Structure formats: C-alpha cells, structure tokens
C-alpha cells in the first residue's frame, strides 16, 4: 500500500527512526501495520486528507505513536460497524484527564502513567493536553487512587492535572456514546468544583445544574439563598457544613470556629430564610442553589 501511495504522493516518507525526525510540514498517518507515514502538506488537498483518513489513522506528531491496543479502542469508538468491537475480559472505565496546554510532553506523561499501573494502560489522546485513560477493573493489592496519582504526577511532572472518572462498563455496547458523554461531562464539571479528581457520582448535581437555562439557574440561587446571596462568609460556612456531611463538630474544626458560633450562624440562616439546613431535603436544595450561583 505504501508503494502505491508513493506513486500518487512522491513526498511520502516512512517514519523509522527517532521521534524528532517528524517534520511538522507533513501530514502524518498511521497505517494498519502501525507504520507512520508522512506526506508533504503541499501535495495534499483537504479532500485528499479526508480520503486518506478513511483508511489511515491521522497522527499528531506531538503525541505518542498509538499502540495496537489503543488503535483497537479507537476503532471501537469511532466505527459504527460491529466488526470493530472486540472481546473484553474485564470491566473497564474511561478516565478523562486534562493538563494545562504546552506544559508537558505527552510521551513523558504516558511513560509516567504506565508506571502507575500493573500493565500499560491505553491512552486515547484528544490533543496534546487532554485525553482518556482506559483502566481495566482488576484487583491488585498495590493499586493506587487517582488522588494519589494526581499528587505523584504533580511532583514528578510539575503539572496540575484534572481527572474525571467514569463508571465501569462491562461491554463495548454504546461505547461511542459513553466516550462522548464522558468528555462532554468532564468539560463542565470542573466549573463547579475546585477538586481536581471528580467521579461520575460527584458530577451528577453539577451536570443537572448545568442543564438548567441561565435565567432559572440565577433564579434558584436568588430564591433559595435570599438575602444571603452575597454574604460570602455565611455561604462559605454553609458550604463547609455540607462538605462535612452536616457534622457540626467537624465543620467547626475545619473552619476553626467555636461550635456554638457555628450553631448560631446556622440558626440565624434558618430564622431569616426558613431553611433548616440540618434537614436533608433543605440541605440538598441549598447545595443546588450554591452550585447554581457558581
């Protein structure tokens, strides 16, 4: 195939040596045999590029060369045909990651990620700073959490990383939908939280609030929080109380406040708004209002 293509595109190169040799004035593709080929952009029309992409995988030269495993997953997501699906042994989940632009070499990131798991995990790159890690559900006693992974990568790679962790899936059915919904959700959830590791469970309230049209969202904030809408100190107290699972002692400790003062502040909020934040339903409403305000 390469020879046939070379007859059409005389500039065609086959990548065989160091990664640094890849020329950015070329369009690069990966063949079915995992060879990387490049064609001078001047020799290509946009129609050519689209045509080539139907049987070759476009390749970003700044990203690691996809492994067979990664190509398999990519095919399963991108192809509507059932033949693209393959058999999976264990449940799997997608973990979205994003890093600040131009702060890291994706190849270095991939090397570090692989060292954190018992075997190399497929990474599907969206671009040079975000993508999906595919993690199989396995029971290794020395596995580590994504909170820990975030810290270890931050100290080794000097980058702040966000992780959004999807649910486990047992089959490849609806994999494309899972993939796209996860990416869409990931791009929204970090608006509502300062946490850098968020699971799909944490994200549900954020996504619900995000669905509401802006006018109603603003109205929920104002209606529920009433005169406290701009009282940052009280709102911070309430937010911490919710984060501490409505535990007065824990909240007082975190805020370094006497528990009687905290109690007084919550009582005042009840008197002025009629909302008893110590009751689950009221707490949930206030939580949604706080999110709506963000």
């Amino acid at each position: 195939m390469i020879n046939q293509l070379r007859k059409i595109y005389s500039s065609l190169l086959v990548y065989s040596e160091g990664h640094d040799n890849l020329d950015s004035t070329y369009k690069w593709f990966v063949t079915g045999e995992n060879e990387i080929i490049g064609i001078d952009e001047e020799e290509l029309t946009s129609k050519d590029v689209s045509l080539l992409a139907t049987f070759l995988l476009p390749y970003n030269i700044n990203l690691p060369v996809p492994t067979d495993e990664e190509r398999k997953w990519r095919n399963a997501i991108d192809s509507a045909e059932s033949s693209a699906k393959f058999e999976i042994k264990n449940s799997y989940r997608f973990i979205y990651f994003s890093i600040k632009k131009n702060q890291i070499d994706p190849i270095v990131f991939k090397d570090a990620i692989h060292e954190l798991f018992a075997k190399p995990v497929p990474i599907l790159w969206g671009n040079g700073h975000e993508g999906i890690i595919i993690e199989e559900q396995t029971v290794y006693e020395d596995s580590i959490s994504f909170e820990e992974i975030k810290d270890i990568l931050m100290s080794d790679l000097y980058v702040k990383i966000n992780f959004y962790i999807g649910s486990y899936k047992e089959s490849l059915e609806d994999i494309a939908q899972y993939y796209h919904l996860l990416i869409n959700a990931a791009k929204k959830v970090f608006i509502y939280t300062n946490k850098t590791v968020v699971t799909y469970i944490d994200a549900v309230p954020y996504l619900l609030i995000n669905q509401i049209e802006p006018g109603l969202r603003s109205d929920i904030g104002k209606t529920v929080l009433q005169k406290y809408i701009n009282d940052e100190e009280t709102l911070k107290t309430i937010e911490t109380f919710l984060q501490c699972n409505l535990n007065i002692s824990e909240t007082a400790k975190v805020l370094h406040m006497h528990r009687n003062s905290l109690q007084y502040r919550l009582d005042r909020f009840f008197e002025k708004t009629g909302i008893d934040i110590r009751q689950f339903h009221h707490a949930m409403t206030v939580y949604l209002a706080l999110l709506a305000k963000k």
Partner: protein
Amino acid sequence: MADLKLVNIRKVYDKDVVSVKDFSLEIRDKEFLVLVGPSGCGKSTTLRMIAGLEEISGGDLFIGGKRVNDVPPKDRDIAMVFQNYALYPHMDVYNNMAFGLKLRKFKKDEIKKRVDNAAKILGLEDLLTRKPKALSGGQRQRVALGRAIVRDAEVFLMDEPLSNLDAKLRVQMRAEIQKLHRRLQTTTVYVTHDQTEAMTMATRLVVMKDGYIQQVGAPKEVYDEPNNVFVGGFIGSPAMNFLNGRLEENYFVMDDVKILVPEGKMKYLREQGYVGKEIILGVRPEDIHDEPLFLDFSPETKIKASIEVAELMGAEIILYSKVNDQDFVARVDARFSVAAGETVDLAFDLNKAHFFDKESELRIK
C-alpha cells in the same frame, strides 16, 4: 539555595472569588517558613502559585532574585511534596527516587549519585530494592521526601505532607523533616492547618485567614504577642480564652466579677481611652493558676470556679469551667487534684494576658 519574594500577590478565581488578597512576604534563604491557617484561608493556593501550579492573578513572585511569574513550574528549580505521599507501586525504592530524574533525561551516573546520596541522608540504603508495599508508612514517607531531595532544588514546597499519617507517625516525621532541613539548609515553604506542626517546625510562621496574612513571626513571638483575636485563638492548644467585659479604672469587670489589671497594662489602656469601654480579655489556659502560692499573691485576680469537666493529661489537668456565664479552660499542674463538680479558686495571671479591641479584635498594645 534561594530566597523568595512575594509582592502584592493575588489570586482571583472565576466570578471574582478572591482566594489570596495582597500577599507580600520575603522568605529568607535557608528559612523554614510555615503557612498556617484554617481551611480556605489561601495557604495552599499561595504555595501553588509559588510552584507555578496556579497562575498568579496579580503581583510579582521572585525566586533567587528572578521574577518567575511566567516561568513554567519545571523551570523554577523547586521540588514538591504533597499530602498523598504515594509512590509508583510497581517500582522499587531506588527507581521511585530516580524516576523524576529519568523523565528529565538525567544521565545514569548522575541519577545514581543523587539517589545514593538521598538514600544515605534518609537512612534508606538497605531498602533500595524494596517495593512500596513492603515498606512501613514512615519509610514510604521518607522515600517521598527522597524523591524531592534528588532534585537538588533551590526551594522545597510541602503541602500538608503529614496530614495523611497517623498521630504517632506524624510526630516522628515532623522531627525527620526538621533534621533534614538542618542538614540540607534548603529554603522550605511548608503548608499545614495544624498549629502544633507550625509551632514546632517553623523558623517563622505566617498565620492566614480569608486570604489575608494575619501575622508573620517566629513561633514564640506569634504565641506570646498575637496580633488579633484570631491569631490568639488559632495558635495554642487548648486555645486562648477570650472573655468579654468592661474596663474600669484598674479593673476588668464581668458583671459582679472584678479582676485587677496590672498598672503596666492599665497605663496603655488608659492612654488609649479604653476605660469605661467593652473590651476582650485574652488569657492562655496555662496562665490560669490553682497553686496556693499564686492564689495567695493574687487575691484580686482570683475567682471561684465550678469545674464542669476535668481531663487528666498526665502531668497536667485541663479544667473546663465558666466565669460570668463565659466558658474558659485552664491548664493546671496535676499535683493538685481537681475533679469535675468541685468548686475551686483559680487566679488569672494578668501580666501575661492580652486585651483586644471589641470592634476590630486587634490586640491593644
């Protein structure tokens, strides 16, 4: 080694949420500076701005005299240790320490030299071939420190590195980090919410609240001369007692309870016009006494206290009581046995007490 200079540093998140407000500080070369404060005070954000993990919204940051606001984190010559002292689970200790250098394309010989040196400093020489799961919690934490040491960086940044450890190990690691700092003399910025950690480790500490610096000073200075009610209450355990009352000529008065104010303190209170006004008395638990000799010499700072709870801590007893319906805590010598339900005489050492303005909550001096 390097000094750091933060000039009017600000951090504003989306929608005008200001996390750090006008933070200015010079951190001296070789100093062990601790940022301490309650959750949400801006201490971690400040550290992350120094690291370059958070963008600086306003102000200037200098490391070693060079402005680094726009320098990527990897080029700031810093090493970081975080709360989760996680290690690569499938690598041995040697490779865990070496990996960061390998990623930065250091030569093998140099990596070996640095890892061996860090292992020697931390007493990890015999553990280099062990995997993390075969290490104790303390050993793992030492490896995490080793991963920072091998960087040979100008500045260490530590963000609550001990908060995931149990109480016993925390005390042990506190000492290890201090020893390490004495040996390496690397400028260190250390973030904690734990005032004991701050007091025991810092060369200087910075107490923060709501994005503002409340006080900067040596631990003893901050403990003995707190700038305001917040600092007085935050630093020290049990916390400083705060009693509301009125200042009358020579006396601090809480309804029918009158406590004599020493002339030295009365003089500046009088000069600043506090006589006849509501003020706050701040007194540390150890400055409330039950020893007969002290009681004899302090008849006019003595009160009758009904003890609600008495906690025997070994060498001392923590007494919880009320005066004029206001809670207070005293720390007294366990030689004099006191039990809950008893009424005892206690005397306040007003020479060591502080007075705070009722409105501004600033210490009157």
